[in-house]
């Protein structure tokens, strides 16, 4: 399972490095969103600083959704996924590999995004370790649910994935935003229950994904 997962993740990251779809399309898109927020809130720094956590996470969620869609598109090209299935490749390995690749890609995006927000919205980052840890957990949570649901909606039109995914991961948005809020306010102790919930969410769906992904591939 882990050998397959590593091969899968390496393959996805290599493909991303060569095609640079996320780098060339998603990253600029994320900055478009930042600019839109600035316009929408009349570039009032006090407001923008206040809404930084929410802004960061809403933007990241859109980025995650695009990354998940891209991860599935890779397998759809030339029907590579049928090849994987027909060779009896371990579905758990496929699942874990996809999750790892998406999380790593999104972490890069988050670093750039948070730096951009810190500079453009004049919103200094505190408790970076806490912010990073919660980002990692939230990304794992969204990626696991996202890969499963992307399999469920595969070939059924692009608008179905966000419709199914976003309500399911809404608690992640809530928790991650709260953790960031407390992190930025320098009151990290308050973030503990929210972080626990993030851990719970990610673990539960990681297990669910590992258990059901074989069935998803067969469907």
């Amino acid at each position, binding site marked *: 399972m882990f050998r397959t997962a590593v091969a899968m993740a390496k393959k996805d990251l290599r*493909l991303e490095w*060569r095609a640079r779809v996320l780098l060339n399309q998603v990253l600029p898109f994320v900055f478009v969103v930042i600019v839109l927020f600035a316009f929408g809130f009349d570039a009032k720094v006090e407001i923008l600083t206040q809404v930084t956590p929410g802004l960061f996470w809403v933007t990241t969620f859109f980025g995650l959704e695009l990354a998940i869609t891209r991860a599935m598109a890779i397998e759809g090209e*030339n029907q590579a996924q049928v*090849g994987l299935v*027909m060779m*009896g490749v371990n579905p758990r390995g496929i699942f874990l590999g996809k999750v790892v690749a998406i999380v790593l890609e999104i972490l890069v995006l988050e670093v750039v995004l948070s730096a951009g927000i810190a500079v453009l919205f004049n919103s200094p980052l505190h408790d970076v370790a806490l912010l990073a840890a919660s980002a990692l957990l939230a990304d794992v949570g969204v990626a696991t649910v996202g890969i499963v649901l992307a399999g469920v909606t595969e070939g059924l039109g692009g608008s179905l994935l966000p419709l199914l995914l976003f309500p399911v991961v809404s608690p992640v948005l809530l928790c991650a935003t709260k953790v960031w809020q407390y992190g930025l306010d320098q009151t990290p102790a308050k973030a503990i229950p929210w972080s626990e919930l993030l851990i719970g969410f990610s673990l539960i769906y990681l297990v669910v994904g590992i258990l059901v992904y074989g069935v998803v591939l067969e469907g």
Partner: protein
Amino acid sequence: MTESPNGRLVVRLRGATVMLDRFPALARCDFDAYESEVVFVQGPNGSGKTTLLRLLGGLVEAMSGSVLVFGRDPKAEARAIRREVSYLAHSYQMYEDLSGRENLEFFAVAAGCDLDDAIEWAQRLGLATRDLDARFRVLSAGQRKKISAAIALSRRTELLLIDEPHALLDQATKAILDLGFTEAARAGKTVIVASHELDRISALATRRYRMSNGFATLVESP
């Protein structure tokens, strides 16, 4: 599994019906294949050849009738069966932005098969090292097909499902491929090939089916 003059029965279909949406791609189809056989399935487009192969690989499900591959139901025991089945499909099933070699490497690790065998097959089919190291995206249709064929032929499986192998390939490669099928059958494997090319079929086949309208008719048997 039944013994017969032809050897062990590997594939047995009785009255299998496969619906693709509302369309019966296979309609009460009977089909047999034995050990050490090269079975050719001929028939016009849309007669159900591809669906037959997909059914044997457990990619589609029979709505009625019985399907046995190695005496087991390929849909219910898909993963067990697929370790014994290679499938060379119409689609290339490769990643565009990896080179041919990287594709082979990836599938070798993921599917647990031998990389050297796969590269040997690719070379035997006439792929130069330069082509192997070029991105899949820039290769010609024939070259792409060779890479897909290399992985399918190098897997150590007992049943080979081959869909339209001759399309896109040049004469020399077709001959090598056919030789590969004969070798596989001699080694005790079962090769089921769907193809239009009747001349090639007659030369190699130990058993021939003609498909039309989702039904297979046995044309000749040894």
